[in-house]
């Protein structure tokens, strides 16, 4: 790994904003502060997006609102010869655990309960942390942000399982599986939390530190 020649010392890396530069977040090209669009890729240039946090919170709330019905309504409707069974996300996982499939129950619980809740917490925490002083180091907050961005997509796994099951298990009278109303809310919740994380401008994490350092 070669490290870049930095413009400051390694302890004191300068941000582009402090140097009067605005950089394209899509293609990393630098331009003087105040340039509107990147002349390499045409992406909109903004040194810091003033609306970033507002969009983060807007998507965050919609995602959270969708997450509630996603857990209340049934995810799957299973019809077998004699019975109809409707199971919610948590109910389905508990049922799997009763059958002895602990591994799969754990995957489902982690992918559709633990990860979404952790994501709501992490995005909210990051959005709050850039507006007030915090003791948590920037590296750690950057790490949280990267995890949120990477892991958010994996919550879609439950939707895909529902899709596969409802397409596959259509055995006329014997057994059939159909998606329940929770699936659409869950998909929306995942999509909106992904949008919320994307709206977060991670450069703000590092701004706070610069402010704090110059204050001391």
């Amino acid at each position, binding site marked *: 790994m*070669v490290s870049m020649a930095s413009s*400051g010392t390694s302890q004191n890396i300068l941000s582009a904003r402090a140097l009067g530069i605005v950089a394209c977040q899509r293609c990393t090209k630098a331009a003087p502060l105040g340039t509107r669009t990147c002349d390499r890729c045409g992406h909109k240039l903004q040194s810091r997006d003033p609306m970033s946090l507002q969009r983060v919170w807007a998507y965050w709330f919609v995602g959270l609102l969708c997450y509630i019905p996603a857990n209340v309504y049934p995810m799957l409707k299973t019809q077998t010869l004699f019975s109809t069974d409707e199971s919610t996300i948590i109910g389905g996982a508990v049922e799997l655990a009763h059958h002895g499939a602990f591994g799969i129950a754990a995957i489902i619980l982690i992918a559709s309960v633990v990860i979404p809740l952790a994501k709501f917490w992490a995005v909210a925490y990051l959005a709050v942390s850039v507006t007030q002083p915090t003791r948590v180091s920037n590296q750690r907050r950057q790490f949280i942000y990267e995890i949120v961005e990477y892991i958010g997509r994996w919550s879609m796994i439950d939707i895909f399982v529902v899709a596969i099951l409802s397409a596959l298990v259509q055995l006329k009278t014997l057994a059939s599986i159909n998606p329940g109303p929770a699936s659409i809310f869950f998909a929306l919740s995942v999509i909106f939390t992904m949008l919320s994380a994307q709206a977060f401008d991670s450069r703000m994490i590092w701004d706070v530190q610069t402010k704090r350092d110059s204050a001391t």
Partner: protein
Amino acid sequence: MKDFAAPDIDVVLDDVIVCPQCDAVYRMKKPGHGERAACQRCHKVLIAPRRNAGLHIIAIALAVLFLIVGAAVFPFLTIDAAGTKNAVSILDAALAFSGGPMVFLSLATAGLIIFVPLLRVVLTLYVLVPLVLDRPAARHAIGAFRLSEALRPWSMAEIFAIGCAVALVKISDLANVGFGPAFWMFGILVVLVIAQDSFMCKWSVWHRLEHPKTS
């Protein structure tokens, strides 16, 4: 803050690279093949050129193109319970949510597992083939590459593959479930998509698009 402003940096904007994640400014020093330049404070990889990366990516992209089409059409799971059989392709699975508001889910699933990955492959080929052949960049290549990068988080083929495994275990006590040819295609596809992403050095592509004849 003002005393930091070094005047020479404002002048040579082309020699400067800025970390898109944390806004740190570095003076450009292009790493050699196989080396990586990473941001010192947030450790994001900024430049990672590889020898013949373009050719490798094109080869992988072509393979992915055929695999996606094949995987979408052939059956990928078969089910057999007490004489009643059913075989589904990925398209069937994506279109499982039919009727009423569920149509939205159908469209979203089909998009995330077939059309977005497919579109990304086509865009990648469109951008990279002229560059590798040392021809002038294709028309709108810059917009195409930008779109391809924007779609990256929405391409969910590998997540679908894990979903298959979960679904299999979920119904294995209900019926006999078998793999169709498309399942194996999808397995290979997941590996290829990950390899393709690791070969791709975005900075190099942008640089070549901007300076077609040099380098």
